[in-house]
């Protein structure tokens, strides 16, 4: 199998990826859903730092190298976990053409790549984050071609007693569906009141066709694209860009319209922006458990919070987004969460919050803006 090679510019990178794609498809015809370790993967990484040179915590032993194109870097992964017989280079192309949303293209195996990205992103103050594709974003915004299937993964981690064997609220729900009419299947599941809160998409599979060819993509909630089959790397790059732009548009809307910004005037202060609201379909039953879990600072929410004015159904929270260390505030009540981002807050905190609340609390929550506009 041909490996990905160091390249000097984007054109060479693209050619290398295209050659690799054609080769891997030939080798892997019968194994579309397995062996993702050989597949091309692209991650969309949300960045709050100006250039890759300023990455604060590059995972151990990995090395970042420049190319002739200042927007393209090559990251070499350490050789240690690689079998001695495997002489192929383990590398990642880092495309920072869009300074806010970087692309990592690679064929590094899933586990190793996930470990790398986790280490890159999840360190406090990394200023880097995943692109968080909420369940309804995956369903609506990632439907760029023909639906081929989906994965669901839900685990209610806001229960007071997680070990109880009694049949109460839905605790876990996961399934993989590959086949025809996935949207009909999804609709059927959502129509079941006992399951609806657990219908949280973890990934969708789409066939995307262009005049250049086609690609089959697995698109995951953490902003990862796995190209499972296809013949056109341009189609893959177009699919990624298409969804990236939709995601970016949501982040821009949040940061333009849903951040509170006071500006000084000659005689006082003006205010621009407002809060957004997460609408909870399912009432918060145990407020203390909910607060403790959400505000602990732990993964995946990465929100630390000091609750004030706490009652059985309300808390005003002074919070820190551990991704960027920006302050923001929340008003949590049993039916909704108001989120007040301030001047420099990162909009990605909202997509992270939404995606993870959908996975770990209730898949039916929505992020609402003004005029009843559903932001996510």
């Amino acid at each position, binding site marked *: 199998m041909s490996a990905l090679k160091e390249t000097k510019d984007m054109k060479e990178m693209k050619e290398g990826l295209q050659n690799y794609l054609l080769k891997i498809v030939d080798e892997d015809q019968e194994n579309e859903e397995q062996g993702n370790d050989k597949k091309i993967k692209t991650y969309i990484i949300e960045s709050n730092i100006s250039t890759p040179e300023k990455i604060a915590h590059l995972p151990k032993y990995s090395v970042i190298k420049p190319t002739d194109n200042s927007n393209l870097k090559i990251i070499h992964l350490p050789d240690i976990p690689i079998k001695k017989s495997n002489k192929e280079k383990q590398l990642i192309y880092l495309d920072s053409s869009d300074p806010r949303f970087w692309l990592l293209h690679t064929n590094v195996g899933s586990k190793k790549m996930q470990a790398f990205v986790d280490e890159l992103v999840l360190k*406090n*103050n990394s200023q880097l984050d995943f692109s968080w594709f909420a369940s309804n974003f995956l369903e609506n915004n990632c439907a760029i071609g023909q639906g081929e299937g989906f994965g669901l993964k839900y685990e209610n981690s806001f229960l007071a007693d997680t070990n109880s064997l009694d049949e109460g609220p839905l605790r876990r729900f996961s399934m993989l569906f590959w086949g025809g009419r996935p949207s009909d299947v999804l609709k059927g599941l959502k129509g079941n009141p006992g399951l609806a809160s657990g219908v949280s998409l973890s990934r969708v599979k789409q066939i995307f066709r262009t005049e250049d060819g086609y690609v089959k993509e697995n698109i995951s909630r953490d902003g990862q694209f796995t190209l499972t089959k296809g013949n056109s790397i341009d189609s893959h790059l177009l699919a990624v860009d298409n969804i990236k732009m939709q995601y970016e548009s949501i982040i821009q809307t949040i940061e333009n319209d849903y951040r*509170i910004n*006071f500006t*000084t*005037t*000659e*005689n*006082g*202060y*003006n*205010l621009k922006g*407002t*809060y*957004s*609201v997460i609408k909870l379909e399912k009432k918060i039953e145990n407020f203390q458990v909910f607060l403790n879990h959400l*505000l602990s*600072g732990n993964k995946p929410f990465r929100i*630390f919070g*000091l*609750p*004030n*004015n*706490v*009652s059985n159904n*309300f808390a*005003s929270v*002074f*919070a*820190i987004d*551990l991704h960027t*260390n*920006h*302050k923001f*505030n*929340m*008003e949590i*009540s049993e039916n*909704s969460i*108001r989120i*007040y981002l301030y001047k420099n807050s990162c909009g990605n905190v909202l997509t992270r919050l939404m995606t993870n609340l959908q996975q770990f609390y209730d898949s039916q929550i929505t992020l*609402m*803006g*003004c*005029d*009843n506009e559903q932001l996510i």
Partner: protein
Amino acid sequence: MSSSSNSTQLINCLIALSTKNPDFPYPLWENGFQIETIEPRILLSDTSQANPDIQFKRNNDALLFFECKDGHCEKNQLERYKKLTIEDIKRHHITSLTSPDLFFDLVYFTSKQKEEKIIQSVEKDGNPFPILILEESAIKFNPKSNKFKNPLLNSILNEIPIKTRVPQNFIPFMVDDDDKTILCALLQHFIQKNFIIKTEYQFTLDELLEELFLHLIHHYSPQARAELKGRLGKLLKILMEKDEFLGKIVRREDVFYVMPHRPRSFMKSCQKLITEMKDEIFKEDNKEIHPQLTFENF
């Protein structure tokens, strides 16, 4: 249960009424009223100063001032508002409106609990201004008070039903909030600094004041700033004596130092302190150092 002070609630309520938002009524915004200034200062012809809490503008000719009250209506302040004229407003260029027909309304805004105290001023001191009351499920015009000059305001502010809580975090805290609320903001600030600054975070009380009360501090009077500094100093002193923070927050002369902490342990200490803190802990201290401040102190 601790809560945002009435003043903070009232100010946030007015901001919500005039800001398009997802879940709270905003009739002022719908009818073209925009916040022009928070805490405008208007020098009157007799050299005294009027200092309402928020100023709104509409079209090119209408201004609306709100005075939020968390207590009774001071006669001295009322007299100043009575003297306020359109000429004072024009002379000091406090508005961007340019119409020769510029006019203004001024309204008192208070909570249901304080309604009686404000209403007394109508009969006792001849308060000529409209009075709005924030109740649990509505904002209502008090019929004992005078109507607005602007007929539009009489119709849109007569009664505004409220179905959700009043938003509290446009401005999360102000000077007359309780200690726990200000402490939350203080610890939130320290945690942020602990992440950003790898070495110790050092500050004077003046610097802390600037960073913490960024949104409004420049409009506070020297007396109010001094009181605030005293309050922050007292809170820091209490923090320094807490087991969790011994040696971690220190003072050398006028400079305070928050030593670099392991983030996880620092966050845990802060959370523990806030969670376990009874709202009454500092109450006795408050009485000594912090008689409830109201807007008119500023």
